[in-house]
């Protein structure tokens, strides 16, 4: 289980997170929503070890992730699919995926995990020898998710996986996340498509100006006018 306690983070003078506390249970899908600049990406980056928080704690399965470097966080079973996919465009699909099994945790089962990823994303099996940079947006996102799955995570974090993708593709990807979750992986999802994310998630947090301003079961948060207010301001909430 992931437990973030009172996290503070900043980029120079720009305050990004202030006293953020969230929890992700080992079998949950938790969504993180909020308008741009609310701090969602910063939170994921702090958990993944890419950004160092100024204060607060990040506990994973009871242990403090502290100031672990990202590759160590991966060893503990927390994987992140960063915003914008960030594939190695000059390497093939299979090379990208194989690199996902680099860690000690994932290496022994590499072939089995790879087979499983190809099962989940049959399209990628067809394209395994193509350069990752030549794939369509949706296929690249599949590689990005598949690559993270190759690390054999117990917690999978995704930062705006639907960005730039067609609605059908997005729906399909969210379906995959559901399948992954059912197979025992916790999912922490930052998503642009708020409604779709809240439909999917068990629970959700609403972040605004670096603070948690709302939380609850997915459907509750979706129905809450606060969400519209968070994105579009007080004028958006009909009296």
């Amino acid at each position, binding site marked *: 289980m992931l437990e973030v306690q009172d996290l503070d983070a900043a980029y120079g003078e720009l305050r990004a997170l202030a006293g953020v506390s969230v929890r992700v249970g080992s079998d949950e899908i938790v969504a993180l929503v909020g308008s741009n600049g609310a701090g969602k990406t910063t939170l994921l980056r702090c958990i*993944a*070890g*890419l950004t160092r928080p100024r204060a607060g704690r990040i506990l994973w399965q009871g242990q403090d992730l502290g100031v672990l*470097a*990202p*590759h160590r966080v*991966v*060893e503990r079973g927390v*994987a*992140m699919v*960063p915003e914008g996919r*960030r*594939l*190695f*465009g*000059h*390497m093939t699909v299979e*090379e990208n995926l*194989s*690199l*996902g099994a*680099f*860690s*000690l*945790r*994932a290496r022994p089962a590499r072939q089995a995990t790879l087979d499983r990823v190809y099962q989940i994303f049959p399209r990628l099996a067809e394209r395994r020898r193509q350069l990752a940079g030549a794939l369509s947006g949706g296929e690249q996102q599949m590689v990005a998710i598949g*690559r*993270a799955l*190759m*690390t054999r995570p117990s917690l999978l974090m995704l930062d705006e996986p639907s960005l730039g993708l067609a609605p059908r593709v997005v729906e399909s990807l969210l379906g995959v996340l559901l399948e992954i979750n059912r197979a025992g992986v916790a999912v922490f999802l930052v998503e642009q498509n708020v409604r779709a994310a809240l439909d999917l998630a068990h629970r959700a947090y609403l972040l605004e100006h670096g603070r948690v301003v709302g939380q609850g079961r997915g459907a509750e948060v979706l129905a809450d006018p606060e969400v519209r207010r968070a994105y579009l301001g007080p004028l958006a909430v009909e009296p």
Partner: protein
Amino acid sequence: MRGLVQQLILGVLLGGLYGLAAAGLSLVFGVLRVLNVAHGELIMLGGYLAFGLVTLLGLDPFVALLLVIPLSASLGALLYAGLFRFIVRHGEETRIKNSLLVGFGLALTFQALAVRLFTADERSITTAYRGRALALGGVVVPLGRLLSLLVALLLIALLHAFLRRARWGQAIRATAEDWEAASLLGIDVRRAYGLAFAIGTALAGAAGTLVSLGYSISPSIGLEWTLKALIVIVLAGLGSAFGTFVGGVVLGCAEALSAVVFGGAYREVVGLLLFFCVLVARPQGLFGRS
């Protein structure tokens, strides 16, 4: 005509070493985004190391090469751990600026060290076969230099295979493309950096060995070799080991051509013109990715 062919052959032989020299610098720059302007000094030190092993232990230079490579790699690992490790903490722009400063400092230090230890005299390795040459239809191919070319090509091929197939080779390539994404997959980026730096230094040491075998070395050759390596990198672009090798050969031939057409004093001219043209017309290099 024969004179031209002879010069071209010599140009190819030298060009192969240019390529090997550039490969090490290219790897370090491509992966760490750090411009080690002391790379030429590392070549020089490699040459002196080989010279020492040959004259003191009586080893064959190619056997000495087998020792120079791991020793140079160790030096590279030390330089990374002690110096360049701190430079990579910063963003790309700062890295390049800092590495230029640090590199120049290192270059001066190594040069001074070499003068102290070895005096400023030129040295070269003499072997039984150094004087021998193959005569092919009127052109002379020095044997030592030919073997050096083959060895250089072999090392490039090994580098290519390593980067392509070995786990850490792929990790290095991934780190070069996107170090954050690489670290998110469990790759220890600092280790990848250190490894790349060590390999780059090893290649420099190997190049130095071959230079001291086929030509000569002195404490001041560093800057010249760094410049040649830079020119080759611009010509060839980043990202291809074999491309870098070919770029080196192209430069070697360009220089040979230049010497024949304009006279020995203007060797550099054609090469530099080529450098300029490629920079303007195809900045990513002949084999580089845009």
